[in-house]
């Protein structure tokens, strides 16, 4: 029966091409607009490290005190830690793994004298960084606790940077000048692009520009200044490097891996006690104010999804809604125009459920064709978005195989919903009244 209804539906669609075309285009445009924006939204809001996002946490400690002019609905916790606090958390060593980190920009002199010096984006961090974030290696491996403790001059390169400097060869053991000191390459990363770069949501958080990694302890020795945000209170950054390290300025990011619920609550208690101890010692003169957020909470808290993307996504669903109302109206017109034919079928013994099924199949076919048009429009939409979106977002907006199926399924589903009322109206046709008009 389904096959027969399907054939009837195709025939009926061919009969009034203008009306059919309008319906198909309406559904296609609605699906195309909403799928385009949804793909971009998903790219902007994706979980960058799904396998571990629930066990990685950012601690926050209020070291600036209550802000008199703060807007009421924000917690105003500092985004980063001071060097002192970060080191206290490193020493406490309460997580399964933990790493303090910051970004710095250094001049790199390539081993090949023919190449000009260039600027490199360096991340100074601890050895746990690599195991905590599941960072894959192509050559060599990460440095270990020993290198952290001895402030070793070792460096890990990302793959693109290794390609640039060493033509993609295994460069483990080679030397590289960073600033004016030599460093030994200990590992080269495989492709790794967590997006957004959740562990540092500063500038370019979607492209992630880190190119080299070296031990935090070494970077502090070498007085490599941060290239990220440095926020201070009234006391300022103090004088010189040592002044900065002892200042109340925040510039260090800190991540900790806590694999059990009890570990998480223990860490919360620890943070609270730490802030309380700082109050006791006279450094803070306000009650402890701390937080511990996992990856997804951290991204939401930092509004990683651009407001404009959120707006456009809601607007695109308004388009889908208008398109569906439109399709409902057109289907109503189409089904009612066939009242005569429905009357004949009813008179020949078709039951109401049979008419219902026939009309619904027809709606489904419209949805199917509309969905295919929608997939095409989504592709066009994404290509044109790629040319105007900021490059850091556009690399993420690719349509995946599953999306095509989802788009078509959604198109059929919404068209069936849109077709419910027209279908119901069609089943209400009185055979006798219709036969009279024939």
């Amino acid at each position: 029966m389904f096959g027969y209804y399907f054939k009837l539906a195709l025939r009926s669609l061919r009969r009034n091409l203008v009306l059919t075309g309008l319906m198909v285009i309406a559904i296609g445009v609605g699906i195309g607009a909403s799928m385009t924006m949804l793909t971009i939204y998903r790219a902007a809001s994706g979980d960058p490290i799904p396998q571990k996002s629930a066990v990685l946490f950012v601690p926050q400690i209020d070291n600036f005190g209550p802000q008199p002019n703060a807007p009421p609905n924000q917690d105003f916790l500092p985004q980063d830690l001071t060097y002192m606090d970060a080191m206290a958390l490193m020493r406490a060593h309460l997580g399964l793994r933990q790493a303090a980190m910051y970004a710095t920009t250094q001049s790199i002199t390539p081993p090949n004298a023919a190449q000009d010096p260039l600027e490199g984006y360096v991340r100074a961090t601890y050895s746990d960084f690599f195991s905590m974030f599941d960072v894959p290696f192509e050559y060599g491996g990460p440095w270990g606790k020993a290198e952290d403790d001895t402030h070793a001059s070792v460096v890990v390169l990302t793959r693109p940077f290794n390609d640039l400097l060493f033509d993609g060869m295994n460069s483990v053991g080679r030397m590289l000048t960073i600033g004016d000191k030599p460093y030994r390459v200990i590992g080269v990363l495989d492709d790794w692009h967590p997006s957004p770069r959740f562990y540092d949501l500063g500038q370019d958080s979607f492209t992630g520009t880190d190119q080299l990694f070296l031990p935090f302890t070494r970077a502090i020795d070498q007085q490599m200044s941060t290239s990220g945000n440095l926020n201070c209170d009234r006391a300022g950054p103090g004088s010189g490097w040592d002044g900065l390290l002892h200042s109340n300025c925040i510039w260090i990011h800190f991540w900790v891996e806590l694999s059990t619920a009890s570990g998480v609550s223990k860490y919360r208690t620890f943070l609270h006690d730490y802030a309380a101890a700082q109050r006791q010692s006279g450094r803070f003169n306000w009650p402890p104010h701390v937080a511990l957020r996992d990856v997804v909470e951290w991204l939401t808290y930092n509004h990683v999804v651009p407001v404009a993307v959120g707006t456009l996504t809601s607007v695109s669903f308004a388009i889908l809604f208008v398109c569906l109302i439109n399709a409902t109206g057109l289907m109503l017109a189409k089904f009612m125009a066939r009242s005569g034919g429905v009357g004949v079928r009813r008179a020949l013994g078709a039951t109401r459920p049979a008419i219902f099924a026939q009309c619904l199949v027809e709606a489904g076919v419209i949805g199917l064709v509309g969905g295919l048009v929608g997939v095409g429009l989504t592709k066009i939409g994404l290509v044109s978005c790629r040319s105007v979106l900021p490059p850091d977002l556009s690399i993420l907006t690719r349509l995946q195989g599953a999306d095509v199926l989802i788009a078509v399924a959604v198109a059929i589903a919404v068209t069936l919903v849109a077709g419910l009322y027209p279908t119901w109206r069609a089943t209400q046709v009185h055979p006798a009244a219709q036969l009279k008009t024939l």
Partner: protein
Amino acid sequence: MELRPVIAAMRRNRVGALLIAMQIAVTLAVLCNAVYIVQQRLSWTARPSGVDEADVFVISNQLIGSQRDLGSRIQTDLAALRAVPGIRDSYASNQQPLDNGEDEFGITLDPDHPAATRFTTVYYGDQRALATLGLTLSAGRNFNASEIGDCGDLPSGSLGGALVTRELAKQLDASGNVLGRVATLVPISLHVPIVGVIDRLEAPNVDLFGGSSIVEQSIILSCRFVNSRVDYIVHAMPGRLAETMRVAPLALAAVSRDRVILSVRSLHESRREIYRSDRTIALMLTLVCIIIVAVAVFGIVGLTSYWVSQRRRQIGIRRALGATRPAIVRYFQTENFLIAAVGVVIGAVLAVGGNLWMVERFAMTRLPFAYPLLGIVAMLSFGQLAVLWPALRAASVPPAVAARGV
């Protein structure tokens, strides 16, 4: 035009009429808010930076090698740049307008009252800054050579002088009377006398402040910037920008190769880059408006055409009874007007509601009343436009139809 028969006919077609009204309502709501956002973003991107953008470019430079004599290295570089034919002037700064930057501080004339502290963005510059950027001095004077000091990190203590924008002057003192007074930068406790007021100079991150006038609150400190990472701001003679942008890096390389030239960009390019996302949003929302209006219009065309074909016999009867063609056209226009009127009223409410939701969630500003009003006029016109073709087809139904099959 008698409304009663129109309303009576609509009663028999309640759902169809309701569907059109709903489409018009949602379309109006989206249209108002989208056009408002587009208009807002475009007005942001059109704000002048205060700089003579047509002739200025910036060389971002990282000096490497020995860091001991940075000050004299930078001065040598600048002298080499000024010697390039076609370059009028240049100076070294920490940052440039229309690009990402930082160095944001509090500023006040009254350090004892924290509430009087305002936001400011700090540029460094010597006595050449004013001419190189092409800024207009509206009061006071430029720096003297004697006021210029070397700054690497911002010193605490005191500095020779500062130029503030008119907006910052107004923020510091309601009457704008700031000349000769000493400003204090917080939290670093830097004291500096204000020697001049400039018309306008935007902060670097103009894209981050959502159109707020806070981007106008800039200050130039009388400093020769001494840092390994330094921006050379260069003013080319009129019409010689492209040529000097090509030659300038070569002139620097001739001075010394111990450097990384990070970028050479005209302010035009910087402007394009920094307002890119605003333009993207404006473009996409414009597309959205076109799509949603087109969908609504075609929906009205489709459904009205169906009504026309359904009522062919009735139209024929009316024509046979003496109704003229314009009368038939007017009938469908009136019908559409009544439906659209209901739609636009609901739509105006939705538009304001949607805007309030965005005010709440995305810190949008309130929609001015002109937008829903103009939206209502636009949607009613679109409705009339959409109904025209089906109505004309209805008018062409011959009266003879009435004679058939009665």
